């Protein structure tokens, strides 16, 4: 028989879970302090809902399931869309300032990475208000969380979904041309943007603007100055003002050092309408977080709802932390280990029960060898000759269990 090897070797041992759990706990605590409440969405979603919303998730990437009525379902490919739907459809919730967060697995498949079908996202959505204050608070929260995770060097890249869209409005490019242009801008491919634009019939000043977008990158103040030169109409002026307002507030939040502006940032999720951003850390080549403002998504469910949100890729965060070596790989660790002789069995078992009852983690065994590999704060021995407890290599004797408890309690303050 062929051995069954998991094709997707996601870290599944207890130690990895502990690290994952700690990371998630840090994220949850931080989201909580900004007034966000945790929610979950169902694992099975309607395929129709996703396929009706244009420009979101590639239909081929969704994992489909057919139920017994023949209805097509998909495994939750994202969380933002169902949360927006719930908020838009539920009349009972006043959509004014709903702050929600989630930690959920999302499922997608791609031909390039056939063995990567699930990933954990931890994200927030803030519904009900469109203001530079909310935008910058959300970005502030993202940097705050990255700081909590002890990343030495991280950067949030901020762009605006409207900028490129406004410029496109001024041209009459077809979808195919837009697609090529978009990928050239996304890869900042200056060598080819110029000849490509020349091959299209676009007015000179618009061409100039599109050409300069990719290199509007870096220090926000500089980018804002550069961008002033390519403003062609009122709506672009509004967008620029939005970027200026957000930066002003970010400076007062003291996070401007961690922020870059990138006007060449285009998110493939078409539903973004305002500020968009992504976060990078030193040790991993992909963004660990992505997000932005998506005021128009609610319209798809019949109720316009201003909204902004972002999500961390928890697996990337863990990978990056492992690379930085900031997750400590301890061996099995417990509070108390107890070894005992057969004659003292009752006493030892009762002591273990008492300790566990008060919340200590206890491993107990008669054979010393089995517990040798386990690190513990307290090593207790119930032997025929004497009872002893070992704390940081210092041995202490005790007569009965009550004495043991008081020693442990005293040490443990």
């Amino acid at each position, binding site marked *: 028989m062929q051995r069954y090897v998991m094709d997707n070797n996601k870290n599944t041992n207890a130690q990895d879970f502990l690290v994952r759990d700690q990371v998630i706990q840090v994220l949850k605590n931080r989201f909580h302090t900004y007034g966000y409440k945790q929610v979950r969405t169902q694992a099975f979603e309607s395929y129709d809902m996703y396929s009706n919303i244009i420009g979101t998730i590639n239909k081929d990437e969704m994992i489909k399931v057919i139920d017994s009525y023949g209805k097509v379902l998909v495994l939750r490919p994202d969380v933002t869309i169902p949360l927006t739907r719930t908020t838009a459809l539920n009349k009972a919730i006043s959509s004014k300032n709903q702050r929600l967060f989630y930690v959920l697995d999302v499922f997608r498949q791609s031909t*390039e990475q056939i063995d990567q079908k699930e990933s954990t996202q931890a994200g927030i959505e803030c519904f009900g208000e469109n203001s530079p204050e909310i935008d910058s608070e959300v970005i502030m929260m993202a940097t705050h969380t990255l700081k909590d995770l002890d990343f030495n*060097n*991280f*950067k949030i*890249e901020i762009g605006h979904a409207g900028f490129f869209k406004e410029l496109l409005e001024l041209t009459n490019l077809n979808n195919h041309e837009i697609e090529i242009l978009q990928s050239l801008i*996304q*890869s*900042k*491919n*200056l*060598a*080819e943007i110029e000849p490509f634009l020349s091959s299209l019939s676009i007015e000179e000043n618009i061409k100039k603007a599109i050409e300069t977008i990719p290199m509007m*990158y*870096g220090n926000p103040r500089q980018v804002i100055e550069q961008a002033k030169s390519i403003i062609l109409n009122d709506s672009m002026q509004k967008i620029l003002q939005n970027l200026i307002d957000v930066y002003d507030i970010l400076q007062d939040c003291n996070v401007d050092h961690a922020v*870059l502006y990138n006007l060449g940032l285009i998110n493939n999720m078409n539903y973004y309408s305002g500020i968009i951003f992504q976060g*990078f*850390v*030193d*040790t*991993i*080549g*992909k*963004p660990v977080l992505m997000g932005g403002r998506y005021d128009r998504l609610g319209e798809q469910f019949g109720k316009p709802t201003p909204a902004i949100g972002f999500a961390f890729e928890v697996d990337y965060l863990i990978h990056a932390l492992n690379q930085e070596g900031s997750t400590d790989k301890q061996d099995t660790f417990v509070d108390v280990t107890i070894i005992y002789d057969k004659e003292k069995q009752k006493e030892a078992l009762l002591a273990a029960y008492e300790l566990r009852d008060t919340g200590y983690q206890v491993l107990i065994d008669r054979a010393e060898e089995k517990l040798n590999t386990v690190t513990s704060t307290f090593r207790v021995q119930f032997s025929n000759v004497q009872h002893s407890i070992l704390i940081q290599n210092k041995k202490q004797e005790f007569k009965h269990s009550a004495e043991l408890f008081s020693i442990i309690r005293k040490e443990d303050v």
Partner: protein
Amino acid sequence: MEHITLALAKGRPANSTIKLLETTGEYFTDLHEDTRKLVFYNANKTIKLIFVKALDVPTYVEKGAADIGIVGRDNILESQADVYELLDLKIGQCKFAVAGKPDHNFSDTQKLTIATKYPNVAKKHFKKKGQPIETVKLNGSVELAPIIGLADYIVDIVETGSTLKENGLIVIEDMDLISTRLIVNKASFATKSEEVGQFINQLKSVME
């Protein structure tokens, strides 16, 4: 200052790149023609140079194992890596082309078999034309395929066309132009902006 990792593909583009770097004053210790070492540092250890296979350069850069890569555009297109393509070094210039036997005449409806080292590039090109194809991935001597009858056409890089000519093939259709490009990991561009920017400016200054 943090060091940056630069991935190069062994071969002609690497030699020209290293020459360019030397004109900027960056010399790499122990680096000579027949060394088998794969990792080198410049004098003040601000640049770590690694040698990898050409097609792997975009992968190294996309994953962030290298901050910067210098490689032919053919490999970037084939790998479909999500990276910044910031600079055209204007060396190693050639083009992608569809080539085949001169006497071959295929009706448009027939499904074509294309032999190539670049299946992704070939698929993309024919998809755009609405022509269904089947690709045969080969790793070398691609010119042989139409002669032997393994494929109808090939998609390959063409520099002078002499290899094609000697094997009795002609260029049927020109595709994208190719030259050596500098690519940058998107995260490195954000977190090491200064170092990456400085390196690119250094290169630019000696190119003109």
